[in-house]
């Protein structure tokens, strides 16, 4: 039997039926956009790459690639970061 790369954690169906938000039950990353100029990222693990045109972030469920221009990290802490700049594409990499 082929193993899934990111299997759902045990008890996920129970948590879903209890309507517990996914960021709490699976610790999934939360990405909040304000237009294409601001992005709030929560529940991430670390920064993989930071360049003015590309930022790659590692989350528990995979990698997120943000491409654009003049990308700046407005603030950066263990729990949350805010990215500003002109964002063009967001890619979820497996």
């Amino acid at each position, binding site marked *: 039997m082929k193993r899934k790369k990111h299997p759902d954690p045990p008890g996920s169906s129970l948590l879903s039926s209890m309507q517990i938000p996914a960021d709490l039950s699976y610790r999934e990353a939360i990405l909040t956009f304000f237009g294409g100029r601001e992005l709030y990222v929560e529940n991430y693990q*670390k*920064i*993989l*790459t*930071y*360049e*003015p045109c590309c930022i790659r972030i590692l989350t528990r469920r995979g990698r997120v690639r943000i491409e654009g221009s003049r*990308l*700046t*990290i*407005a*603030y*950066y*802490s*263990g729990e949350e970061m805010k990215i500003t700049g002109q964002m063009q594409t967001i890619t979820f990499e497996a």
Partner: protein
Amino acid sequence: MNRLIRFLKGYVRIRLMSRDPERFLNLCARNRILLWQLVNRNGSYEMYLSTADFFRLHTLCRKSGSRVKVLRKYGLPFFFYRNRKRKAFFAGIFLCICLLFALSLFIWNIHVTGNYANSTGSILAFLEQQGISHGILKSRLNCSDIAAMLREEFSNITWVSAKIEGTQLILEIKENVDGYVPEETPEGPSSLAASKDGIVSSIITRSGTPMVLPGTPCKKGDVLVSGEIAVKNDSQEVTGYRYVPADADILIETTWYYYEEFPLAYEKRKYQEPGFSFPFLQIGDVRLETFQPLQKDELADEETRLWKLHLTENFVLPVSVGYQRSLPYTTEQMKYSRGEAQKLAESHLQQYMGKLEEAQIAVFGSEIATEITDTVCRTRGTLTVLEEAVERQVCEQRTVTPTPAPE
């Protein structure tokens, strides 16, 4: 708020030079070091972090093989460090703080709200008489005493709240808005007499003996309610008298004569362009004028505007600024037409009736005629009004001579 805290604690802008900058950033996040305004500039990274966090970077730099250069230092600790030799500057700041503290011990503004019948000026003048003025020490004030003093002095003030907020004394006032003024009750025995000739329209006696009935004509000085109450025995014989201050609501129907006359010819002013405004400064009663008009117009009004300088809302300085200018005019002889004169006379009569209404005098009949001659407009006639035309008189006291018992 965050900015203020950062400024107070101090922060630095650094440049990170590293082969693996992401590792450095992740180590910062792991060690709860907050970074902000992180920018990739020409291959190196620039960012801000607090001074306290900067001193924790040494281990992280060693782990990630990075080098950090301080570009600029911001905040109060660095400011103090840079200016540590400027002792006079710090002495000035210290003196300024002391001065602010000293000034905060005084009252610099007295704010009065809620007053309609009593002007702010009269309330402030009374407080000044009592030694409470702008610039008084806060510790010398007792708010409850101030409230009690105001209630005692101004009879129509029903409620006062005095409180000190900062350097401001706030007086909130509620006044008796329905116009009820408690009458002073006379202590000695007295009677109520008519103060005008007329017909008694209604009489409601609360204390004393009524001497007239409604509809009775009365003359000025007639006693309407006597303060003398006869004490009678079982045989209805007067055995003595009790004397009280008479109290009654009496309305008397009186006749008022109305006469008004004005000439039909009048002067009408036509104002021209106002002249140049001459500014001046006034200190006390001394006025420092900039210019004086060289030639004064014969027919002109003088307009003077004055603005008093205030330090606070009610703290007026004895310094004023203003300007003076002349408003020249020409006169033209005019004459009211018959219709205009009639309308003007009617409006004057309406104004007069309005004043009577304000004084709570009811007008229920009028016989007024307007007569217009070639030169004047004359309005005359009579008004029948209901008014409380009574005055208080001292009640003469008498004693009953005992009748001799039949032998």
